[in-house]
């Protein structure tokens, strides 16, 4: 089947199988290799892209489902070849990465956060990146990068989307607020309905 996808502002078409994920389609058909496969079951966040500005796991979405949406990949964040966005530059400043594999997804999650929250608290940053697993950094320098980017964006005139466009409350209740979640705990049956 043929899909037409608007990726990083450009409409592109591809012949795909219905079962092809958005992740595989971005990589194999459009050679946008910045989007990475990590677990392919929706936990690690390495495949994160933005769909209409919201972080989405491209491994859990079929290419066909993305038709009609604005898709942003990491390649769409750089203002020009060789130039970094404020957030990308902040990750370089604090060394908010090591191997670089989770980094595109992490930066897109951070980008989405800073689009609707100009001065996020540490807790809000942690919440925003809690769906992106990093095995290298222990997150410390990632949180610092996002704080640093927020400060720099506050002093810049880069336009951002309005807070009202983001359904904040729904997102916040997706995950536990803090602490360690055990599988058994997560799977515990809720009260019978």
């Amino acid at each position: 089947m043929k899909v037409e996808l608007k990726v990083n502002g450009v409409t592109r078409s591809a012949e795909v199988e219905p079962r092809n994920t958005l992740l595989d389609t971005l990589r194999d058909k459009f050679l946008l290799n910045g989007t990475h496969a990590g677990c392919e079951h929706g936990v690690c966040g390495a495949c994160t892209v933005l769909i209409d500005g919201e972080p989405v796991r491209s491994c859990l979405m079929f290419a066909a489902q993305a038709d009609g949406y604005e898709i942003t990949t990491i390649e769409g964040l750089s203002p020009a070849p060789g130039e970094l966005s404020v957030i990308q530059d902040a990750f370089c400043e604090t060394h908010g990465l090591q191997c670089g594999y989770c980094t595109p997804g992490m930066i897109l999650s951070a980008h989405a956060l800073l689009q609707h929250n100009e001065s996020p608290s540490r807790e809000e940053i942690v919440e925003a990146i809690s769906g992106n697993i990093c095995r290298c950094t222990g997150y410390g320098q990632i949180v610092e990068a996002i704080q640093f980017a927020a400060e720099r964006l506050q002093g810049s005139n880069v336009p951002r989307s309005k807070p009202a466009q983001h359904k904040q409350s729904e997102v916040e209740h997706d995950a536990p607020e803090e602490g360690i979640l055990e599988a058994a705990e997560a799977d515990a049956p809720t009260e019978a309905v």
Partner: protein
Amino acid sequence: MSADPSTFRFVSTNRRVREDRRFVAGHGRFVADIALEGMLHVAVLPSQHPAAKIVSIDASAALAMPGVHYVLTGDELAGATDQLMNGLDTPHVRRFPLAVGQTRYAGEWIAAVVADTRALAEDATEKLRVVYEPRPFVLKAEEALKPESAPVHPDHGSNVLLNKLFVWGEVDKHFAESPRQLSFRVTWGRNSTVPIETFGVAASWNPWSEVLDVWASIQMPKYADQIARALRIPANNVRVHQDVDVGGSYGVKRGIKQSVLVAHLARRLGRPVRFIEDRLENMRSGDAHGPDRIFDVDVAFNDDGIVKSMKIRALDNAGAYAGRAPFQLGKPIGAIVGPYKIESVQYRAQSVTTNKAMQEAVRGFGQAPTNYAIETAIDKVAAATGLHRMEVRRRNFIRKEEFPYLIPSGSTYDSGDYHTVVDKVFKHIDFASMEKERDRLRASGMLAGIGIAACLEPSGGNSSFEPLLNEKNTTTTWMDSCRINVDGLGFVSVTIHTTSSGQGHETLVGTVIGEVLQIDPDMIRIVRPDTLASLPSNSPVGSRMAIMLGGAAFHAAQKLKAKLIKIAAHQFGCTEDNVTFASGAASDPAGKSLNWAELVNIAHRNYHLLPQDMEPGLETTHVMQVPTGNKLPENGRVQMYPCHSFEFHVVLVTIDPEIGKPEIKRYVIGHDCGTVINPHIVKGMTLGGIAHGLGAALMEEFVYDDQGHLITQSFMDYLLPSAHEIPKVEIVHHCTPSPHTVFGQKGSGESGYLGSPAAISSAINDAVAPLGISFNKLPIRVSAIGDAIAEAQQAKLQE
């Protein structure tokens, strides 16, 4: 040779990490980004049984599918390749990329399907029909140790891969003389570093040039050699492309079986072939599990808490094959007494095969589990004597003035100042107030505990444990190398000869060479040639690259500088020691000077101006030997790694007694890795290491059910710490330079990880001590804590 720290221009400064730019833009080049013309894809069929004879494999239905090119079985592969290397002298523990005749763990690869796409290859694996004849199996190390246990490799004769007893010093005498003794068991659960990028490899065979090109997500010494051996082709027919970015490894990216499988298929089919593990393949059968170890420890000490002697028995469950895993019992011998003045040690190292997945090298190579055992011993001595846990450590610490310090097992610790690091940390946190805070939390109804751990990070990785555990092995070098070339226009290009998985080697080398040549590090180009164009190197293992690659770069730059000075002296008509070299230019006392461009021009174009017998051009290389590691073992003693970083952890944890969930309230680490070359990199290593350790301590485990099936095989049940679980960590720095390295640097690639499991365990146990319970197995899961608390409370009610 050692540089003067007061003159550093680039070393120890907060320069950016040059690798970061390409990654933040999504322009890393990972193995899954390698797409070759006409490339085919592989999927593998996993075994359904932990042990079974493979009676038959019917591939006809799979091969009949359009787009399916080939089905490879273990029998064909074993006929065409040699078995993969073992570290120990265990020739009958044979390993091939696919099971041959018999499967030895659930998930083991039985056959490989090659198709036009990975999806198609996966579909075709479902059409394979395998007839199995199940056999008895063994999962637990203590069962496997018994002579009557079902042998994983019948030809080997038993499940025992290694059973070696070391006695260093007068252990029996010290135990007999000691007024106090205690014994305990702790268990380190099977986990791993589980990188977010799985292992992947692509290979292409050119029959006209007879070269096998390999691109892989690899972190392994002698990788190209191992592929060549297995394929029975000359090593110079294998070209590994080392400019592939590796998406995390921390030791485990050793995909030799995957590589031999793909290389064989590429040759057999005459087409490029790629195999990227999916997450299930990676977790269940990627040969990437870590140590799975039981420690039985006896400690001899006195009423003052002075530990005189220790007996440690470490029994490791290596899984179905040997590989290099048993060596992970050997490396900790280099720091077997931790930071303490323990006079004698008995160490029994045991490794057994079982019907679990195979083990590979994991960050620290066995040191983190060993440190957990040692630190548990110190906490228990404190509890037994009624002394403060910190006081016992202080009393047993090696003192600053006692370095270099020879430990009983034959390693000499280079340097350290443990008491000062502890003092700095205690001052930073105001330890007394932290204890008050803990007590206040306890009074409010919470369980609260403080964890303490002190340990060493042996660094500079040689491979002395190889000859120590395998007498047929005579390895005494574990070199690394660097080559510098200054082109005719004066620009500097440097080659390094290994892959990188996030350690910032380009930044390291640029900084070091910039420092020596006094030129801007950002002007230096660093490249990774393929293995056919490389100098000998041993990859980033054993916390060694700051020392070994940094050292090689330093010495190569010194040679280059010496050449520039010689050229200048020849022009000036003075001796070389009268030439001053600064900011890339040379001058003499009379005021004559030659700038960088002029010196380069002479070297590249004015042979008539060069000193006699000097080669034209500006190129130098250095192949560096590991400092101190020059001898084979004698009497079970050997110098293991040259340098010893120190870390000291203090953790405040609370546990909600209702649900058993621990929460880290504060995490402070004191860290001394000598001279820091790039502060960002060292900080990242330390914070990332602590996160790995937290996972090992509280969350991560490869759990097998009684039927031999891995039940934590996805990220839904093998739990990785997210940003929610990892606390903000405070780092207190100290610098005790190593006398063995060029800038005084020590290793930091395993920092944080080596002590955090011990510290977190210590904190949990301090928290639950008032209930009269303790935990002696990692990971300490929420469920285990909750159950134990409930049971203890129940018991109290019944009293």
